[in-house]
């Protein structure tokens, strides 16, 4: 029941925040902060700690950390089925923590309809939590949409100068790919019913189906597209710079910190395990897209003059590493990918919060009009420096652990691909330091006055710094949480070079499928 309560808490909290606006315009943000805080405490306190280290068999939901199944439309085999394992837990905690950061980041930024704003924020969080928990594919799709629409509203109502374009682009990209996923879900369930004689949308029933290779290939592609658009992977990333740039600070934080992770989560949880052969067949293409994203994102990040756009492109680059890690499909790379999801969530959220703070103070995002800000705001400068070096992968911080593990794992499978992806480490240094130079270093403008970070902002920043240091110096708790899940998922699919028999069977079909 815990899981349903968690989602209901966020949904209901959103409603409450909306209504609270009538009492006082500043009340909604306190309500939102309280609701997310309570949800986080609730999640952590109701957790059975002794089960954390248990291996979770993906086929049997009974021994997961928490699980819930209520019949919804039994006629179609659709149930309200939620389940949580270590991976979901990790991402839920990240979601709620970044939810707190997002609310803090937009503390005084929103003056128009603050209640509705906070409500949309909480509903997005509810949708994301649902996505990380849903184990019924139909329900998963439902939450996928629940996550999308409030986010669309956040951008479309509270965004910046070009908001409707960005919001519409975001919506169309996500929706179009989401519909492909819905199609794939239906096809998969229908195929499943032909095999087992019973229609079911449950993840646990659909795992391990032996599908016709050609059907599996196309269905996998539907899932893959939906998730890589969200991730986003090159070349489906173009919605992201616009959406991030135009979104209000909290929206950018949520978008970069969590929503992107739903794509990676979907690939890891659904796309690869449901279609192991097809996915492994597809892996070289996916990894190629990953490498392209790593380099392309970094080059474009360097070319931007808009602070937020730069950070947005750096996300494209970093998520390329996730894609690489997932499709390299060995323990090191998978752990690296999970680590990257967490570390990138924190570091990019912090950078977007910084960008938002700068825009709030200077009314511009154009780095050409910044420069020498360190002089006026040394605390902001120091925070920016910290997260800039985190994003370029300084050892001792979480992002390094992630990228190193991904590349180490990838090297064992595709050394050349790893070598090309490693160029991303150089390009990351170029854009990160260029950002610091343009915004914070250089000659300060004497006329400009701007307040430095206050206590509220510094608290959020300090929390994220500590998190990154912790992830970088002692990542073991996170690794341990994800390890049993990754082990069990990994058992479902075998990389191609270890499964030559599969190649010969699936290759002709896949080839004609192309």
């Amino acid at each position, binding site marked *: 029941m815990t899981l349903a309560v968690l989602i209901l808490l966020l949904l209901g909290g959103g409603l409450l925040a909306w209504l609270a606006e009538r009492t006082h315009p500043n009340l909604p943000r306190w309500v939102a902060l309280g609701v997310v805080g309570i949800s986080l405490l609730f999640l952590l306190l109701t957790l059975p700690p002794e089960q954390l280290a248990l291996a979770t068999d993906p086929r049997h939901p009974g021994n997961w950390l928490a699980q819930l199944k209520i019949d919804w439309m039994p006629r179609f085999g659709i149930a309200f089925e939620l389940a949580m394992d270590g991976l979901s837990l990790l991402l839920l905690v990240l979601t709620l923590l970044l939810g707190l950061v997002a609310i803090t980041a937009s503390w005084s930024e929103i003056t128009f309809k603050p209640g509705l704003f906070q409500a949309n924020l909480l509903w997005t969080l509810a949708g994301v939590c649902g996505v990380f928990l849903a184990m019924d594919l139909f329900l998963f799709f439902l939450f996928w949409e629940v996550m999308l629409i409030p986010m669309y509203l956040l951008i479309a109502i509270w965004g910046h100068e070009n908001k409707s374009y960005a919001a519409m682009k975001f919506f169309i990209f996500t929706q179009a790919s989401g519909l492909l996923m819905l199609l794939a879900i239906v096809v998969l369930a229908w195929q499943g019913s032909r095999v087992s004689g019973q229609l079911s949308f449950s993840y646990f029933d659909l795992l391990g189906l032996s599908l016709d290779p050609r059907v599996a290939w196309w269905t996998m592609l539907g899932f893959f597209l939906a998730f890589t658009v969200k991730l986003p992977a*090159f*070349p489906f*990333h*173009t919605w992201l*710079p616009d959406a991030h740039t135009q979104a209000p600070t909290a929206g950018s934080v949520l978008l970069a910190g969590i929503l992107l992770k739903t794509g990676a989560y979907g690939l890891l949880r659904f796309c690869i395990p449901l279609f192991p052969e097809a996915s492994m067949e597809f892996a070289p293409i996916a990894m190629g897209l990953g490498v392209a994203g790593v380099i*392309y994102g970094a*080059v*474009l990040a*360097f*070319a*931007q003059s808009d602070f937020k756009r730069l950070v947005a492109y750096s996300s494209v680059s970093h998520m390329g590493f996730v894609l690489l890690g997932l499709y390299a499909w*060995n*323990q*090191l790379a998978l*752990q690296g990918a999970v680590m990257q999801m967490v570390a990138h969530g924190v570091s990019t959220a912090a950078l977007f919060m910084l960008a938002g703070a700068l825009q709030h103070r200077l009314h511009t995002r154009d780095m050409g009009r910044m420069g*020498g800000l*360190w*002089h006026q705001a*040394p*605390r902001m400068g*120091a925070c920016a*420096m910290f997260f800039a*070096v985190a994003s370029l992968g*300084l*050892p*001792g911080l979480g992002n*390094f*652990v992630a990228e*190193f*593990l991904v*590349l*180490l794992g990838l*090297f*064992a499978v595709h*050394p050349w691909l*790893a*070598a090309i992806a*490693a*160029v991303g*480490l*150089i390009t990351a*240094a*170029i854009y990160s*330091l*260029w950002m610091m*130079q343009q915004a*914070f*270093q*250089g*000659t*300060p403008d004497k006329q400009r006055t701007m307040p430095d970070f206050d206590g509220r902002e510094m608290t959020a920043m300090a929390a994220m710094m500590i998190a990154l240091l912790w992830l970088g*110096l*002692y*990542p*073991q708790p996170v*690794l341990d949480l994800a*390890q049993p899940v990754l082990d069990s998922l990994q058992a479902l699919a075998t990389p191609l070079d270890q499964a030559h028999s599969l190649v010969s069977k699936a290759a002709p079909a896949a080839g004609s499928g192309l």
Partner: protein
Amino acid sequence: MAGIWLIPFFPLASAVLLLLSAGRMPRQLAAWLGAGSVGLSAICVASLVNDFLADGQVREVTLWTWMTVAEFTPRFAFYIDGLTVVMMSVITGVGFLIHLYSIEFMWDDESICRYFAYMNLFVGAMLLLVMADNLLLLYLGWEGVGVCSYLLVGFWYRDPANGKAARKAFVVTRVGDTAMALGLFLLFTELGTLDIQPLLAAANSTWQVGDTLPVLATALLLGGAVGKSAQLPLQVWLPDAMAGPTPVSALIHAATMVTAGVYLIARTSGLFLLAPPTMEAVAWIGLLTLLLAAFAALVQQDIKRILAYSTISQIGYMFLALGVGAFASGIFHLVTHAFFKALLFLAAGAVIHCLHHEHNIFRMGGLRKRLPVVFWSFLIGSAALAALPFTSGFYSKDAILLSASEVGGIGLWLWAGGLLGALLTGIYSFRLVFIVFFGQAHTEPDRQPGWKMSVALVVLCALALAGGLLALPLADVFPAARAHEASHAIEYISIGTPLLGLLLAYLMFLGRQINFDRAADSIAGRRVRGFLFSGWRFDQLYEVLWVRPYTTVAHWCRNEPVDRVYNAIVASSQWAHHKLAALQTGELRWYATSMVFGLVLLLAVMLRNAT
């Protein structure tokens, strides 16, 4: 000694405290916290050295396991052997002196707190680098010192030129670091561990001398070493890195960080010995770099740039030593170089400090009487740099040249090249001394160095003079070197060459008996001078090869070329929309007519299908 972890802990903790104070700490406290923490580390190191020399035991300390993923289990663990002890002594000892000097040098700077925070962070990271028992922790220190170098080169951030130099330093070394990271991937994939000692053992049992894989792995590691130690082809960043405060140049860009590459190769010497082609490459890189940098140093005008090129050149000697297998000599030269180059930089810093931040040597002159302490320090430093007999530099450089001469085949070339380098070193180091301290005064000093600067200079003078007598405890670290049995002729030539350099410098720059002015002012002479002055035009070459293509591509792509595909989809659907919308004329009769014809058409089709 149980508290080995305290050694890096002191500076790191002090850095954290200084950073947390956010510049509000009183400058007295900040300065003494910064210098004191390094001093404490130095005391701990001294006690460690004492213990180590007594028993010669290798010490291993594990703090915690960094992460465990499959077989990948790097730890936060230290491995202390003779090499580590030597490096730690240099880092904390010279480091402390430079910190002490910095208190005075940076006293008037508004961000002294930030300065000491970065410096302490650097010392901590450098200690982690040399103490690491596995390559990943070493890499942490490696990147950590890189970032500190970036922060300190760009310390005076208001001048965009400093920022550019800092970024150049970081990005160029990052190129090498990436190669090194790939080397780590390769080593782990092939040998299953990154712990240095097991790794070397595994390499020796798995690979034969001359196999491809060790050559590849060491070549990648060499990439990292070349970047960090400013050797060909990645030497371009070091001269520009002189934009930072002078004590920074002394500590990071002369004494410690830039020699990390030498340390890396020495640390993994077991691996390099399996790869003779890489070893040969190391030697050639060292030789070419030392000559290239020495020639460039001859024509520079900025006192710090001369020293920077001389640093590149001296590290070239160290690489030469490593390449011919004389690891201990390389490390010996690293140590003496740390002494005399730190001394030179600090003395140069004192000159700059006392002459209102003047860098151009031709606007100095005649400082011998005016700044006596600085003059003697500089003289001793230059003597050691030029390897005049009985200074520390003499012993270490002599050992390197001897080792080179004993290698068969290419050895003679290496030896001759090294000798030419020694001659050039004599010329450019005494050119500096003669121009800055003799002759006519162009700028009057407005102050004298205080006691903190003087103490640091005097102690380093003593080390630069007597450092050659140190016996480094490296016997157990490296395979035993052959006993030198060089002929006396080689010995005399080695002694004579720097003296010849000194004489030439005297004749050219003080006595003016040899006058190159006419030759230098001819068109060809100017070209050559310009060529050398720019550091053999490497900057321009890389500008054309890398920087411009990168910025051009970035500029082309800045408006998202991929979006053109999506925009085309949008445009085509808009086009279709307009075409279809034209059918809707708004005329009722047109609608009625089209409906009729539609119906007729439908009926016709149905009738045809029915029959």
